[in-house]
């Protein structure tokens, strides 16, 4: 079964600091990769996704993620965070041969201090 690992479940940083959230998955086949975000009081929404092509993916709100196949990783980055980036971030994976079910990591709770 697929599994997704996210470390540093609680991250606290100041505005303008850089953010990097790690995501590693365990699956030997071809995968689709996602980062979802849940802002306080809101529903899960897609931040960015990787299906194929350029391994550096740009998403909304200045986020980007890099797929490194050899490391089974899909780390999320933002060069300079804002207070409004306070949220919970989830990495998720699907197999292209599966039924599109998402396997999620445990999430990273990110708090940005003004």
């Amino acid at each position, binding site marked *: 079964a697929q599994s997704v690992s996210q470390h540093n479940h609680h991250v606290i940083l100041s505005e303008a600091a850089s953010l990097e959230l790690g995501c590693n998955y365990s699956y030997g086949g071809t995968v689709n990769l996602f980062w979802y975000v849940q802002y306080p009081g809101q529903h899960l929404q897609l931040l960015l996704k990787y299906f194929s092509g350029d391994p550096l993916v740009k998403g909304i709100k200045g986020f980007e993620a890099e797929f490194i196949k050899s490391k089974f990783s899909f780390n999320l980055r933002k060069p300079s965070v804002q207070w409004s980036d306070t949220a919970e971030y989830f990495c998720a994976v699907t197999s292209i041969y599966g039924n599109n079910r998402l396997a*999620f990591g445990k*999430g990273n709770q990110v708090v940005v201090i003004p």
Partner: protein
Amino acid sequence: EAGVTQFPSHSVIEKGQTVTLRCDPISGHDNLYWYRRVMGKEIKFLLHFVKESKQDESGMPNNRFLAERTGGTYSTLKVQPAELEDSGVYFCASSFRTYTDTQYFGPGTRLTVL
């Protein structure tokens, strides 16, 4: 375009009672998914409908959970009888195509079993 909606937003019931959660997917989305997040754990897949058919229900915890999608539109998830360990947030998601397609999430239903 209206997003995925879920009802109720919160439900508090006693152990042994029955609860029914409802999900209305985005219009035209044939694929409907249920997920659950128990406190402190990752979001986990429960089941997947394609139109009114259950494509995959391998994530359903036990036979106290019954999901339906009559007519291929909205879906219900019934828990009967509810147990303490059923507490958590139940998410619904929908997508247009099955493979390589983004899943759009609803706000979730927070279920508390006392």
